[in-house]
């Protein structure tokens, strides 16, 4: 089953670029990616740029309305994701717990919908 791990966190709590904590976090991500690839769990993963770069859009009455900023105003923002191929939810949760941001943010784990089945 494919699962998506959505990585949410409050940017104010993230370790600052250049600090030893930041270095440790990046190393943690490197180790996790390697572990996932070895186990055949890794499908894809990308970090996102900050929400100051976000643009939201909706189409109403045939007209596109574009807005600065993210769709929802919350403290914790989506910062990146993993797609993982796992046997079951327990395996997906085991890998999600290894995501370094989980120590100060929240990881939402959801199965991908598979309409071919």
């Amino acid at each position, binding site marked *: *089953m494919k*699962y998506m791990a959505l990585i949410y966190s409050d940017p104010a709590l993230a370790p600052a670029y250049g600090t030893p904590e930041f270095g440790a976090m990046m190393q943690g991500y490197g180790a996790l990616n390697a572990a996932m690839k070895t186990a055949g769990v890794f499908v894809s993963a990308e970090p996102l740029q900050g929400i100051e770069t976000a643009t939201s859009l909706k189409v109403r009455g045939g007209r596109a309305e574009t807005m600065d900023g993210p769709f929802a105003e919350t403290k914790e923002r989506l910062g990146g994701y993993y797609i993982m191929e*796992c*046997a*079951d*939810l*327990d395996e*997906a*949760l*085991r890998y999600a717990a290894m995501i370094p941001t989980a120590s100060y943010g929240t990881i939402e784990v*959801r*199965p991908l919908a598979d309409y071919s089945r």
Partner: protein
Amino acid sequence: MISGSDPALTPAAPDLASPDLAASIAKLARQDRGRLLAALIARFRSFDLAEEALQDALMSAHTHWSRFGMPDNPQGWLLTVAARKAIDRLRKSARDRQAADEIAHLAASANEDDHDIPDDRLRLIFTCCHPALEAKSRIALTLRTLGGLTTPEIARSFLDAETTMGQRLSRAKSKIASAGIPFAVPGPEAWTERLNSVLVVIYLIFNEGYFASQGETPLRQALCDEAIHLARLLDRLRPDEPETLGILALMLTIHARRCARLGVAGVVPLEAQDQALWDKGLLAEADALLERAMARRAPGPFQIQAAIAALHSQPGPRDWHQIVLLYDSLLRMDANPVIRLNRAVALAEIGALQPALGELALLAEPLATYQPYHAARADLLAKAGQHDAALAAYDLAIRMAATKADAVFLEGRRTEVQ
């Protein structure tokens, strides 16, 4: 022969009269539901299919057994027939070639003439109590699949409408399927957390039965019995887990005092209970369980709570110093406000009334909506001679009382202070 089967269930006369037969089938359905469902879910990986197939098999049992008598191994018969019914249902709903292949494979394994039912209930317990399910759904699903309660009974126990409870159960089952919650016993890396999730479900079931959060009936015996039954089952399937022994000892100790707990004038406080009404057999069993647990030298919150409950159940004056020490170690594992409240009450008992009131002041905010906080605070204020404050706290506690018995008891206390 199936190991652990109830002798009362073994063969009856072939020309069983139909009301007797119906009763026997109902009894089977109640007692062996968990084991049969677990075996079916292990094979078909679907809660819904397993439940429907078992239902079908029970219907067939009525027809067949009234004609040909009860089989030697009714549980084995039910499992074989339920497996065939499940395959029939799968065939009817199969849409593609791959599904047909899977079904053929399942059908082949169903025809093996194997009457031994493997015990897959441990896997079922961990699936039903998976932390990815909502807390109330874990309770409901565990009671429905492993306990002997029907959906209407569970709904009544939790004061929910039957349809609401039905929807809750079907949402939980559909999340198990769609989110890929495994039908498996967790590995060592998740064991402690997952076992705790199971124990918390069991304890919530027990508490709901014992302290009945709402309504007029303070003791809903069936829920207490179910919780104890589940803990015993867990201990049988994975023996000697210290926290499982701890929760069982805790529940048995509390349960042993049930007959002394309710008087004509509401709930009877521990110090006023007639100890002759305590169930000495259960208390002795709880002691032995706690000793077994402590021999494993892996203390945990349920063992400590069991030790505290055991001290409360000693004949004669209570050892409050020891109780305070136990609360201290409990707080080191779990710094929750309810435990702090209980520790403060024990502190007051050893004469530290002012520190106890000081601690209660700190808990005013987190426990503002917790009725026992106001009841305990009223008692301590009364002890400290602060009568007006005590009366106000009693009024609040009486207004918030969940059961009539609790309110009656507090009104009595309030009158003494006046």
